[in-house]
């Protein structure tokens, strides 16, 4: 009987559904959300529409929006975890022991980091690239549209798997990077670490495929005349970031696999004993991990370049040095990874080398900051919401950055490693660098995708909440770290005197939550007011680059006529010449576009089954998942009719409808 159960459902049993009150609260919230959405879809009879218009679409604009929706939901989950952490660290002092037990706290901070990096940040990243990259290079799509869809659905499969861990079983308690031997079976016998491994592995493959896709897009699909040095700076930043993706993610794939092999097949890569070497895990995971943070921040820098130039009414200062700075960062990001484990004991010479390289990598970033400042200098600055996000970034990132240079000094790091000083540093970089940048980009390009602007006033309120909330939440952490507080503390003595600062930090997070609420409100109000805020020209900000030359919302084919590029900021140049040239009727040609397909969903669905089976040791499920993926790929490869045509006359009709009289 037991054997039959083992074969059918592996390690799964009723125990997996037993949870604490807080966890059940989380599960209930998730379930409620899903039911609400399903209910709305049923009530308004929109299932078919959802399937046809969105889920099976290969239009990168649609895929981009879906990425962003999922990523924002995951961001909310990550912020909920952050709230729990702050609450615990305010209440778990002296004789009190907080709101959740210790082992749960460890799952909470592990989930917080994992979800924020892999699902919130990466999701927003790929979403924005999908929306903007083809438009900015004058292309109609990415290089491999079907691969694009598959990448998105693999990302969703990973997200579903990690959320499943909340309801069925538990999550990893080994931090967001699951160092062994703690993450090995001996010390983490439950399925938590396996959930961590497989959700990241599946989503990671999606990321890798996206990297290949976007690189090929940049190489091969630029509009005629758009030489590399004529590309918008955002495109250069994506080029750099995707180069990092393509070379760093395989390291993650291997490292996760080796840990999985240790846990499932009894191998000895990182175990405590058996001739293993756990330090190799730390080495490999950071060889991926450091490039990963640059993968996230480079496109944010690219967004800032676009935003600053547009809202200073000036072209970007120092284009060439910006390009060199990107490539300097790309190269150097592969030479600094040891700074994450100075204290592991590789020796003074090794530490010195990596410390110096770490200090050097701040230089190209500094170049960028100066170039943005010089762009603003003598420009006519418009303090729109995106510009505010940029200014907030400039101030905070500089502070966090110099904290980083301090940490780059190995002797200093020996004191500050794994303290709250470190936590404050990387949150400063990621929130002000990556998150503010993505917020700026979302606000900036929102009208291009949806056809109307977001409410400016609410956006500004939200920004000020985020800025002040961030300062309150994280500046105390710098001090706490210097006072000796380590990270991941679930309890401390009242005599430490840390509590007041933790209270301030808690208030900060609440203000950030207010900011988030304002952003949600902003979205709702903007949709309500969409007719007043409609973008009728396609160019609501007086932009400089090609995406502003198409109507808003951008048509499925992006450009009715492939643009010809002769210089940087081609659209800006055309606009300013417009008085001289007469508007001739453009000649339309038929366009080939990819058909919708559910195959990407199926591949990811089978991948999810494989992952779930791997977590719970349900062998037949893994087999089904693997065979399903292979079969779907083979079936798809047999499909000869994957594209459809829009005739020239159809395009003309669509263009007239979109542009009105101004064709």
């Amino acid at each position, binding site marked *: 009987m037991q054997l039959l159960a083992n074969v059918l459902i592996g390690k799964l049993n009723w125990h997996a559904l037993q949870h604490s009150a807080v966890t059940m609260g989380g599960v209930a919230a998730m379930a409620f959300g899903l039911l609400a959405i399903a209910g709305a879809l049923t009530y308004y009879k929109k299932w078919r529409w959802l399937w046809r218009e969105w889920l099976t679409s290969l239009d990168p604009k649609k895929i981009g929006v879906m990425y962003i929706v999922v990523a924002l939901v995951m961001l909310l989950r990550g912020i909920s975890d952050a709230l729990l952490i702050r609450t615990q660290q305010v209440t778990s002092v002296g004789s009190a022991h907080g709101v959740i037990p210790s082992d749960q706290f460890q799952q909470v901070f592990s989930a917080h980091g994992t979800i924020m990096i892999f699902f919130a940040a990466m999701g927003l990243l790929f979403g924005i690239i999908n929306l903007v990259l083809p438009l900015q290079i004058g292309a109609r799509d990415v290089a491999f549209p079907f691969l694009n869809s598959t990448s998105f659905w693999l990302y969703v499969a990973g997200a579903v798997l990690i959320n499943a861990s909340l309801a069925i079983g538990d999550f990893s308690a080994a931090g967001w990077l699951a160092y062994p031997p703690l993450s090995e079976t001996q010390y983490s016998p439950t399925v938590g670490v396996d959930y961590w491994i497989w959700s990241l592995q599946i989503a990671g493959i999606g990321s890798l495929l996206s990297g290949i896709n976007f*690189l090929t897009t940049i*190489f091969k699909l630029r509009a005629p005349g758009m030489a590399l040095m004529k590309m918008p700076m955002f495109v250069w930043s994506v080029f750099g970031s995707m*180069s990092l993706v*393509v*070379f760093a993610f395989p*390291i993650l794939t291997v490292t996760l696999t080796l840990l999985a092999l240790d846990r499932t097949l009894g191998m000895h890569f990182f175990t405590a004993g058996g001739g293993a*070497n756990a*330090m*190799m895990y730390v*080495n*490999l995971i950071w*060889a991926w991990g450091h490039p990963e943070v640059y993968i996230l921040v480079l496109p944010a820098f690219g967004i800032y370049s676009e935003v600053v130039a547009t809202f200073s009414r000036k072209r970007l200062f120092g284009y060439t040095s910006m390009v060199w700075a990107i490539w300097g960062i790309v*190269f150097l990001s*592969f*030479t600094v*990874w*040891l700074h994450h484990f100075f204290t*592991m*004991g*590789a*020796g003074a*010479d*090794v530490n010195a080398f990596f410390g110096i390289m770490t200090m050097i990598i701040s230089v190209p970033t500094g170049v960028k900051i100066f170039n943005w400042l010089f762009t603003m200098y003598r420009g006519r600055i418009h303090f729109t919401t995106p510009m505010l996000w940029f200014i907030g970034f400039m101030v905070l990132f500089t502070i966090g950055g110099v904290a980083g240079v301090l940490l780059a000094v190995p002797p200093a790091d020996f004191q500050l490693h794994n303290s709250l000083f470190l936590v404050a540093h990387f949150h400063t970089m990621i929130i002000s660098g990556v998150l503010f940048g993505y917020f700026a980009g979302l606000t900036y390009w929102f009208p291009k995708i949806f056809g109307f602007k977001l409410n400016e006033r609410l956006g500004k309120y939200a920004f000020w909440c985020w800025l002040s909330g961030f300062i309150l939440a994280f500046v105390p952490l710098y001090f706490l770290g210097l006072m000796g507080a380590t990270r991941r503390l679930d309890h401390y003595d009242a005599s430490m005197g840390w509590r007041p600062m933790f209270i301030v930090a808690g208030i900060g997070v609440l203000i950030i939550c207010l900011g988030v609420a304002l952003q949600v409100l902003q979205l709702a109000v903007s949709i309500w007011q969409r007719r007043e805020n409609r973008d009728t020209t396609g160019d609501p900000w007086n932009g400089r680059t090609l995406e502003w030359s198409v109507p808003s919302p951008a048509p499925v084919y992006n450009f009715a006529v492939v643009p010809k590029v002769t210089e940087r900021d081609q659209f800006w140049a055309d606009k300013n010449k417009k008085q001289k040239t007469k508007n001739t009727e453009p000649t339309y040609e038929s366009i080939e576009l990819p058909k919708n397909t559910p195959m990407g969903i199926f591949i990811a669905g089978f991948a999810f089954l494989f992952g779930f089976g791997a977590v719970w040791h349900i062998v037949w499920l893994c087999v089904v998942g693997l065979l399903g993926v292979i079969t779907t790929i083979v079936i798809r490869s047999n499909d000869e009719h994957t594209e459809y045509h829009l005739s020239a006359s159809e395009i003309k009709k669509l263009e007239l409808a979109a542009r009105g009289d101004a064709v």
Partner: protein
Amino acid sequence: MNQEHSKVVISHHHPVAASLKRYLIGFILSLYLTSLAYILAVRHNLTMYWLGGTVLGLALLQFVIQLICFLHLGTETKPRWKLAVFWLMILVVGILIIGSLWIMAGLNYRMSPSQVNQYLRGQDSL
């Protein structure tokens, strides 16, 4: 695309005779280098002299030969994206392997009890 188009498209690729020579040269050279490395390794202990380095060199040579003869590296028209991505890969792989070996050697030396004991007994310098 119909059959007519297909045939014309295909015949526009690189000429066949030159390619055959390339594949043959690559194959024969690879056979030769493999056998040479094998004989060196089984007849001698590679830890002696520079034999280890020689066998490594033979491997690298075969790597380059197969890259050029089988994978046609360097034959694409400009822009040479394949070549550029290849060099970037070599760079990353080099940094990863050399860096990891250097780091792990340092760690293993300083973090393994036997070595540390030797140091403490004054028989070694870190």
